[in-house]
């Protein structure tokens, strides 16, 4: 009896595993895509029947994991450099990262924080004691934020106030919980219904390098064809024109 149960159990696991292998793509997506992917995945599955299993993280964390063999099919980063690392390590199934969107950096604050009007010049105000920024080496939006601050020569003045988050999602959380008065986050995160309800945002002046978000198909994927199909779908004119509702501009 026990051996029959064991066989049935193992069979169940294999069946489940093969099920997943057949119809799902593993996508590693940068944290700023957190509000975007669920809707995109739903549409994609509706159109093609292929399911998307998405893992989120900072672009750096995801790149590191892929470099160390994480079984991903597609990597959607928040910039060019991190997908490029995957290409440089000869782990991508293409010669150069594919741009799929353009990101926008915003400054966000809670409605009840009393910080108004919200602007990057206001950051030096003593009323603002904590500014949340994603790690500049691990998250492209963090790097962009620092670039903006540097362009205004404010880094030295603001340094004591800055708290560093792992990725842009955690950055938003620091401000959402009120622990930081303002946060530099992505437009995608600031555009969610929840964030619009509890906070306001202001686009940062375009004094930072363009956030060209790129993706790559991973060479070791067991679903290369499907992976390429997804990336093509993402960069197709039809899909590109729908990105603005999420807070992303088309890749140019």
């Amino acid at each position, binding site marked *: 009896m026990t051996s029959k149960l064991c066989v049935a159990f193992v069979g169940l696991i294999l069946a489940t595993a093969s099920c997943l292998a057949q119809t799902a793509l593993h996508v590693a997506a940068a944290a700023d895509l957190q509000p975007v992917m669920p809707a995109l995945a739903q549409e994609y599955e509706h159109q093609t029947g292929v399911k998307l299993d998405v893992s989120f993280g900072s672009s750096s964390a995801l790149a590191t994991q892929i470099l160390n063999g994480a079984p991903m099919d597609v990597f959607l980063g928040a910039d060019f450099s991190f997908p490029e690392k995957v290409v440089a390590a000869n782990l991508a199934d293409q010669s150069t990262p594919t741009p799929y969107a353009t990101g926008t950096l915003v400054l966000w604050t809670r409605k009840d924080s009393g910080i108004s009007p919200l602007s990057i010049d206001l950051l030096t105000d003593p009323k603002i004691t904590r500014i949340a920024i994603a790690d500049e080496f691990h998250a492209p939006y963090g790097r962009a934020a620092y670039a903006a601050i540097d362009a205004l020569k404010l880094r030295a003045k603001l340094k004591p106030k800055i708290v*560093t988050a792992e990725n842009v999602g955690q950055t938003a*959380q620091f401000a959402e*919980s*009120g*622990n930081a008065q303002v946060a530099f986050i992505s437009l995608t995160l600031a555009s969610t219904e929840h964030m619009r309800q509890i906070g306001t945002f202001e686009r940062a002046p375009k004094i930072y390098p363009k956030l060209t978000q790129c993706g790559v198909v991973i060479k070791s994927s067991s679903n290369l064809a499907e992976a390429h199909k997804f990336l093509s779908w993402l960069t197709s004119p039809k899909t590109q024109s729908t990105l603005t509702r999420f807070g992303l501009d088309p890749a140019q």
Partner: protein
Amino acid sequence: MESQALWLTLRLAATTTIILLAVAIPLAWWISSGRGPARAFTQAILALPLVLPPTVIGFYLLVGLGPLTFAGRAIIHILGHPLAFSFAGLVVGSVLYSAPFAIMPLVAGFQAIGPEYVEAASLLGASPVRSFFDITLPLAKPAVLSAIVLVFLHTVGEFGVVLMLGGNIPGVTQTLSISLFDQVQDGNYTAANHTALLLIAFAVAGLAIVYARRPWRQFA
């Protein structure tokens, strides 16, 4: 950079150990001195961090004790700043996270002593507090040492709580384990190896202290 993280980690572990011991010793004494639903419930609550993911603890400290809550505002009033992004916040998180590692050896240690010694002391006129310091605590020395080492080591290795709550501020909340995480993400594997070896060395040294001692029944 790394020596700053090392020094910070040691400070955090030491502070946590001192505070936790000061709280856990009387608490463990109370738990081990009798029975009843209150004691059982307290023990269960104190064991919770063993099974709770550290990130959960960090999350609740970040949000549940953040400036938006009543408790959080009280904390700001007392400390002058919110718990998050501060050394004090890390200490609170570490105390909660390492509490089982203090309470459990202490309760076991006190219970193993047996009531006859404290009874004998009280029959000689020693009050419960007196007999605790004269008899129970000296006989429980091995358990106290275990608790100290375990809490210290556990705090040195803490990651999830610090990640949620710390804000990665060098010298304030950037501990060794966060350093390690950053180094790995940056692809700086040499530095990462150094940091990892350092953390392992701590663990080995500490466990050697705990396990190399003679078994506690040295007086039997």
